[in-house]
């Protein structure tokens, strides 16, 4: 159980990025976070990952406070952040450096072929396209099979087809280990395909506007009328979230 309790984050420059945020994520749950640019999504993931500490409030995993990065929490950053001096396979191996060499090689090869980069194993990061680099970063986070996986817009640089492929891959993976996943995305459809629950955030200061659990059967069909219905509702909600930065009584979150 991941518990985020009354978390505030004020950056040293005085900016209040998160104002009192409460969120509980059950083991194995897939939670999607959507919201406009600058509403504090990456900030929230950084607090959960242990890279940053909240100004007030607490984050804890299974009862132990998160005070720093932990082996059981994996993260895909908003940028690929590959080590430019390592080839792609060595970059992916970063996440499982404790395993014996043989098993490591095998898992890396497996992870790379899952993201469609098997033929790029020996390449340098500078030789990859933006989407390929993003997929390599995804493989690096997945290969260690973390218990909690934090994904910050992991598919933003991909074409629609590759994106759907990788969404399916992520679901396969989830079915295998059932990690808890928090997925930040700008793509409502992606959130609806993947998530059990969707949290809409709003900016200035960052907080939760609404949280919904669409009761859609899996596997989810992007063209199903009910799916589309949810898509429009959420789009409207996002629209209000970014247009009414102080919250708005005429569009109560409970409308959903």
């Amino acid at each position: 159980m991941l518990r985020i309790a009354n978390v505030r984050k004020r950056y040293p420059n005085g900016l209040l990025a998160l104002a009192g945020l409460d969120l509980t994520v059950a083991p194995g749950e897939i939670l999607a976070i959507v919201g406009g640019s600058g509403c504090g999504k990456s900030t929230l993931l950084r607090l959960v990952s242990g890279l940053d500490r909240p100004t007030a409030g607490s984050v804890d995993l299974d009862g132990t406070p998160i005070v720093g990065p932990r082996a059981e929490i994996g993260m895909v950053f908003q940028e690929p952040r590959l080590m430019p001096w390592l080839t792609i396979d060595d970059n992916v191996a970063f996440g499982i450096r404790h395993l014996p060499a043989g098993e490591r090689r095998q898992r890396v090869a497996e992870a790379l072929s899952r993201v469609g980069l098997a033929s790029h194993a020996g390449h340098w990061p500078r030789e990859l396209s933006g989407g390929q680099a993003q997929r390599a970063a995804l493989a690096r986070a997945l290969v260690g099979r973390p218990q909690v996986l934090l994904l910050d817009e992991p598919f933003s640089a991909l074409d629609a087809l590759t994106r759907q492929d990788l969404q399916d891959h992520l679901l396969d993976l989830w079915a295998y280990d059932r990690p808890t996943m928090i997925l930040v995305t700008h793509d409502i459809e992606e959130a609806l395909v993947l998530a059990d629950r969707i949290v809409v955030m709003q900016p200035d200061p960052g907080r939760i506007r609404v949280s919904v659990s669409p009761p859609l059967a899996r596997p989810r069909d992007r063209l199903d009328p009910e799916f589309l219905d949810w898509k429009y509702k959420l789009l409207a909600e996002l629209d209000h979230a970014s247009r009414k930065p102080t919250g708005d009584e005429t569009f109560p979150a409970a409308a959903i």
Partner: protein
Amino acid sequence: MAAGRLQGSARRLGWLAGLILPLALALGWEMAVALKWADGRLLPTPSRIYATLAGLAASGELLDHVLATLQRVGLGFVFGVAAGTVLGAVSGYWTAVRRLIDPTLQALRNIPSIAWVPMFILWFGIFETSKIILIAVGVFFPIYLALSGAILGVDRKLVEVGRIFGFSHREMITRILLPATLPAYVIALRSGLGLGWMFVVAAEFMGAEQGLGFLLVDGQQTGRPAVILASIVSFACLGKLTDWLLAAVSVRFLRWQDSFKPAE
């Protein structure tokens, strides 16, 4: 097609361009003396220098001098690099260590290293130890300064990847910080090596029975400018050669760099 082939050979032979200037100068001087425009007594002609070098080489003397000097530079370089790397990495990584040692080292850096010579001779004697330490001191500072500075400039975003994977301090330094600073480090190694060649002359001035620096002093004391120049030419060649070796080896480790490549 022909243009392409021409371009290819231009790239292969590009390094020869560096020879044009010294060869032209040498040829000019040779001709000036041959035509009696100039007097070659105090500045011997290239052919005289070459003859002197050949003579020294034939008697085996040159090789002895070169080996003695190479050994001093080599040992001094290794010790200087080792100390500079360890202290540079540690002071770049731990603020507490930096606060403790950096001001002192910065102050020591401003002492002209030749000023240490009398002290080193008192402490370590006049033989090899004091020479090697002097060279090591010269090599140490560029390495230390470049590495500790470069570590502070490493991209936080890459360091965070290491933190996410639970890297220990040692892993952080060896797997992220040192590789990330490798380009700056290689430049520091090359300037350290250059300083090593400068300091070996000073070291050999302070009394040596062998070495290219000794040859310099000997040529001066016996009034043989050709010997002095032969030694200077050897220094130039060896310095260039070792720098080229270092650069050639480092290219292998820097293939990953995504840096500006000037047009041909």
